[in-house]
């Protein structure tokens, strides 16, 4: 691994301005991705995962705005309106494949659109390259499929086509925003395999955004757990699954079916993710946290380094606050 990360997000703040309040959808998210690495961003619905993904690509629409922090791509801050210079270096795969393909154009047309912009290919050359890309993502009978419309493809095939479209930009970083959520389980596994394969072949870095801990365990090297717009724990995948440091991570892992005794009721996390409307003054997970204590309601926890490179934002790990010290 090189010293400089491929992408480094620092203290990212994305605020949505509504008539009544300012919603801090992303509130100080920090993480980095190195070349060829797969990094997961996991959290519940409404935790700010997708907004983070969209920020990286400069796709935050009104009324949302990036109000702080930086997104460094190879050391260059994208938030200073540098997205145009790096279009194609970062590509995105969205959740619903049937919605990310324009139904009025053929698959080939849409891949060729990206090829025209990023590789300056036109006509026959573009079609040939599109067919190659479709073959790369494992679409059988690609020369025929290239002329088909999105509605003629199954969900899994369509998602492969979307991935081909992303690859047409020849990206260094692929942002996958819940790429398997809309697919059924067997297809999910195929798409995950495909992504792993592509990564190995093309030395892609992948940012994997999902709420599915199972997918994270299968696919990623490194995980960032996000809660209410903040990263609460970051750790290598294996270490996280072995020893979750943050109570929220523990709760998430416990709620995966199959990890608990089959006779027991599957644990859930009571309540829902709060919508942050101001700067943090407490631990946002405290109301739902089984291990919360007095200070949790009055102090916003900072990240505490734990063994290895990992860290967690929890007072339980802050030696000054908690008598518990390092609990695992």
């Amino acid at each position, binding site marked *: 691994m090189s010293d400089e990360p491929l992408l480094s997000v620092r203290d990212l703040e994305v605020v949505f301005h509504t008539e009544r309040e300012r919603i801090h959808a992303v509130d100080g998210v920090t993480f980095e991705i190195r070349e060829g690495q797969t990094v997961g961003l996991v959290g519940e619905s409404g935790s700010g995962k997708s907004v983070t993904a969209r920020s990286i690509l400069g796709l935050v629409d009104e009324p949302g705005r990036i109000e702080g922090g930086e997104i460094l791509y190879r050391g260059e801050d994208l938030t200073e309106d540098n997205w145009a210079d790096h279009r*194609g270096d970062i590509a995105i795969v969205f959740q619903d494949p049937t919605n990310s393909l324009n139904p009025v154009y053929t698959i080939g047309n849409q891949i060729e659109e990206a090829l025209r*912009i990023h590789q300056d290919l036109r006509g026959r050359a573009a079609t040939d390259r599109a067919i190659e890309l479709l073959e790369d993502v494992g679409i059988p009978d690609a020369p025929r499929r290239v002329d*088909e419309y999105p509605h003629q493809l199954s969900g899994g095939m369509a998602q492969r086509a979307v991935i081909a479209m992303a690859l047409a930009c020849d990206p260094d970083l692929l942002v996958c925003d819940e790429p398997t959520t809309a697919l059924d389980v067997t297809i999910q596994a195929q798409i995950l395999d495909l992504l792993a394969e592509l990564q190995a072949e093309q030395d892609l870095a992948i940012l994997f955004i999902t709420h599915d801990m199972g997918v994270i365990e299968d696919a990623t090297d490194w995980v960032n757990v996000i809660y209410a717009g903040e990263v609460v724990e970051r750790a290598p995948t294996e270490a996280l699954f072995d020893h979750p440091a943050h109570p929220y991570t523990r709760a998430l892992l416990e709620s995966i079916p199959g990890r608990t005794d089959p006779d027991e009721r599957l644990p859930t996390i009571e309540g829902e993710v709060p919508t942050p409307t101001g700067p943090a003054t407490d631990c946002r997970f405290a109301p739902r946290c089984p291990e919360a204590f007095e200070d949790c309601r009055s102090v916003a926890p900072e990240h505490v380094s734990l063994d290895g490179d990992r860290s967690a934002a929890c007072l339980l790990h802050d030696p000054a606050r908690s008598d518990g010290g390092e609990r695992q």
Partner: protein
Amino acid sequence: MAGAHGPSSDAADDEVTPETASTILPTESPTLVWVGLGAGLLAFEVGALATFLVAILSDTLAAASLPGVGFVEGIEAAARQLPTLLSRETVPNEGYWNGQRWVGTFLGLRPEVAWGIRVALVYLYALAVAGWAVLGYRLYRREYRAADWTPRDDVIDRFRNHGWGLFGLAVVFMFVVMAVFAPALGPTTVDKNMRNSYDNELTYWDAETDSVETILVGEANLASQSRGDGEERVGPMEYDDFGRFHPFGTLPTGRDLFTFIAVGSRISLVIGLLSVGLSVGVATSLALIGAYYKGRVDLGMVLVSDGVMAMPQLLLLIMLTTVLKDTWVAGLYSGAFLLALIFAFTGWTYMWRSLRGPALQVSERQWIDAAKSFGQRPRTIMRQHMLPYITGYLLIYGSMTLGGAIIAIAGLSFLGLGVSPPTPEWGRAVNLGQEYVDTGSWHISLIPGLLITLVVTGFNALGDGIRDAIDPRSDAAGSDADDGAAAGRGGGA
């Protein structure tokens, strides 16, 4: 056209390759045949087309007082020499009775028959052109398009089963054909019968003296006026004293009503298309830009359109037509161009309001984000990825607004505003006949009035049909029609 994929291709199924077997024209090279048919059809009208195009060019040059008018006039004269098979010269209906037979009419037939033949030929020709276009589409669908099926096919199928929409299409077709072929349809011409009636002579059979006489058209008109009952009228499908046939009767000035209406339909259509075209252009661009950039851009547009909507349209029309009376803009096409501009200026707001919702909806689709993410230019995203989703709405609202524009033009002419006389306009015919509605000369107001109603209903019906066809939830057969009213009713002026 349904029978076009004919028996020979079925019979030869064993020998021919699958491609030729599936053609709708029983030939090896259907495209060539199709192009040939098109060229053949065009040949009938090449003279008229050339004259028309050159006339537009010379009008524009003259209006903008640019050089080259003389040169263009030369071309115009040359264009007139080109043959036109469906012209009034080929099938003339104007002639006179010389005591034994009709002189100067087509094959010596009676004027009404000669005129009827010409009208029938024009409509047959138009049908043939329409059929040719349908054939071309089917050819493309079978031979060239890669996909067997696209959502648009369903739209067309639904429209084909939509009786009310088909009625609208038929009416609009008749109207458009009337407008396009106006000079060939009238029993006489605007120039001869109205504009320069005292420069043209007319030969006729004088029953009193039993001889062939000549008279100025203007004087003949004075003797053919419709101003009351009995002797004082020339009603629909009647001859006047000078052997001239009047399919719709005459105006109070003695001029031919059918000619008046045919040429008037042209000006209505031109103003309608121009104003709707302009407002569609403005509304679409603004809707796409607003939906793409959202936020303040969109808000600004809401404010501007509210401002324009707040202006009273009729007062603005009256004011602007008066203020701009002597400028070159008002001179273009007897003031029709100016009217179209004003209609477009006041009309785009309604169209934009109707398009804004669908455009905003499309802008939220993920393929827009996908295109943004790989760096597609905003203009291309708007054109390629958003526009196709609002064209359906454009057709619906465009069709309905066109009907509204036609009513508005007629209304203005009725009030004596807008298109300046003597250029024919339907509303003026209604106005001219007002005094005589309770006499035998009822036809003057009634016929143009009925036609306006019919045409506007036709355009609205067409809009309804398109809307139901585009909405996949609507069942054209009508089993659950109320389910599909999603695309929004109304939208006319």
